[in-house]
């Protein structure tokens, strides 16, 4: 027994070490995904017996105007959420100055990171409140009539995205600050001697060194925008009239409140496909870039 172990140790050891994480990954991630996809072919209230209905859930989904509202909102979310890495980078460049006072400023910018999304949602709901919210007070000061942003179907999504952006920017800021602290000082010096300064230095020398960080920040931001539903749940519950719903919230709503687990699973599957396509595209893009150089 011991001899067999010794002879095959080189491939048995990784196998043993991999077993637990692999088992957990299969059980907690892969299996629920498969289960969701299977459920999406059934009509099921979540507790009772399930009936196989083939693609009916999907047919219904693609005819549901609510689905397209959610999809449109998801696109707005992604587009606006991608400002988070941009703002984060800008702030990081500003905060990355060798001043002692900057430490205090930095910690102020970190605050959103330690707050739960639910709390951010509550705070922003107050912030937007047309009777006592700060926004209303400011608007009145400048002579505008305050209106209820979260009750306006045209502005509600932007209102929620802004709250989410506030937290996401702080997250990207931390990533970029870490990236900036890893910059090679001699490369910057070489760039300066070669004649780069300000924008050219940033574009040709600094940003290429931040490529890995930017990649992570973008991926996490896009995924964050697709799976965000807690802010919506706290701030509007998808309202008014479902105008602030996104796919993730619609899925939650269909499954938990309408007892339609099959329909919810169909939405989840569509969301899963969107994410997979996006991630596959992004991965391929960066892998090719990495092969080319750098």
């Amino acid at each position, binding site marked *: 027994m011991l001899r067999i172990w010794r002879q095959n140790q080189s491939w048995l050891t990784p196998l043993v070490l991999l077993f637990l994480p692999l088992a957990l990954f299969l059980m907690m991630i892969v299996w629920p995904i498969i289960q969701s996809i299977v459920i999406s072919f059934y009509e099921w209230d979540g507790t009772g017996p399930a009936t196989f209905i083939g693609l009916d859930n999907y047919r219904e989904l693609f005819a549901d105007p609510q689905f397209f509202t959610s999809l449109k909102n998801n696109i707005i979310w992604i587009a606006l959420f991608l400002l988070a890495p941009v703002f984060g980078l800008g702030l990081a460049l500003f905060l990355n100055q060798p001043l002692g006072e900057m430490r205090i400023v930095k910690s102020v910018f970190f605050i959103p990171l330690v707050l739960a999304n639910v709390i951010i949602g509550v705070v922003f709901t107050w912030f937007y409140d047309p009777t006592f919210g700060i926004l209303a007070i400011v608007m009145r000061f400048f002579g505008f009539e305050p209106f209820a942003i979260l009750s306006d179907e045209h502005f509600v999504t932007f209102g929620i995205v802004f709250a989410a952006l506030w937290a996401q920017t702080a997250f990207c800021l931390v990533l970029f600050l870490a990236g900036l602290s890893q910059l*090679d000082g*001699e*490369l910057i*010096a*070489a*760039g*300066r*001697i*070669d*004649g*780069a*300064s300000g924008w*050219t230095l940033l574009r*040709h*020398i600094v940003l*290429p*060194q931040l*490529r890995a960080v930017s990649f992570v920040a973008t991926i996490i931001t896009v995924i964050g925008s697709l799976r965000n539903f807690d802010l919506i749940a706290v701030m509007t519950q998808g309202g008014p009239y479902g105008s602030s719903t996104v796919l993730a919230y619609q899925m939650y709503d269909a499954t938990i409140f309408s007892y339609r687990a099959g329909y919810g699973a169909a939405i989840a599957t569509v969301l899963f496909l969107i994410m997979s396509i996006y991630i596959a595209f992004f991965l391929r893009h960066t892998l090719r870039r990495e092969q080319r*150089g*750098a």
Partner: protein
Amino acid sequence: MEAQCRACLGWRTQDRETLFMASVTIRDVHKKFGEAHILRGVSVDIADGEFVILVGPSGCGKSTLLRTIAGLERTTAGEIRIGERVVNDVSPKDRDIAMVFQSYALYPHMSIYENMAFALSLRGEPKEEVRQRVERAAQILGLMPLLERYPRQLSGGQRQRVAMGRAIVRDPQVFLFDEPLSNLDAKLRVAMRAEIKELQQRLQTTTVYVTHDQIEAMTMADKIVVMRDGVIEQIGAPLDLYDRPDNQFVAGFIGSPSMNFLEGRFENGAFRAGEGVVLPAGKQWKATPEGDAVYGVRPEHFRIDEAGIEVTAVVVEPTGSETEVLVRVGGAEFNCLFRSRVPVRAGERIRVLPDADQVHLFDRTTGRRVS
């Protein structure tokens, strides 16, 4: 090679007529980082076309001095001139200098061609002109086959060469080198040493070169600046520093193996270093005052001689071409280096005599040369 060389010189002389002489003048420069006083009043004159090496132990301020010449650090006080122009407030890109870094600092995301072309492209030079100049520099350095590669695909020596190529395509008034060879293995270092020296002689560009390696300094420099603790200990031609060091620090720093120092007293025309150890005075010491002092003699200036002092060999290290022997006498130990094979074994007693033309006497407290 000849033709390339001429072509390369041609492009220089043409530019040169329109520029001033690229001397570098450093006047009483101070640099403080907070409380730390890194440069304490440094003055150096570097003539046009001269190869000057700043050398000293780590932390002596040599790299900081180089970075102030480059404009990467601002001086706290003092003046730096390149040619006739005071450059204290001129940004690095407008100083018309090029720098080679210890890590080479090649842009990892750019090909070798792009690395070398970067500065020219930023200046807005026409593409064709950029291509010609990069290729000319690449030819001189043998980089033509590597132009499409990326820095990470190159060996240390090749990267070093690219860093030099990036500097020479710009045809700057001054080259700055910051310990460019310290990341190379010993063999490559010797080869690159010769290559850099040859290149500098060919281009005749004023060069300031920082190293902690005194052998590099001795073999390459027209002029060496020895620094310690932010001050200049001595400036001079390599062999002048070797033959007539101003103080005990320079004497010990220049030369390998380093100079032996023996404490004792100079009186009655001889030097006494403890019980019965009497060393001959230097030939020119007639006017040297008597008193406590430090006697300095290089290992290579001992010879085996019946008239010498009797010592015990402690360690014998034959290298083939020469023999290094650590000897002990009284309480003192010192190194002797003989340029031949000597039949000495550890524990044996021999008689050695220092060459009276080549001995030095230093003040015991200040370390200054008194002979």
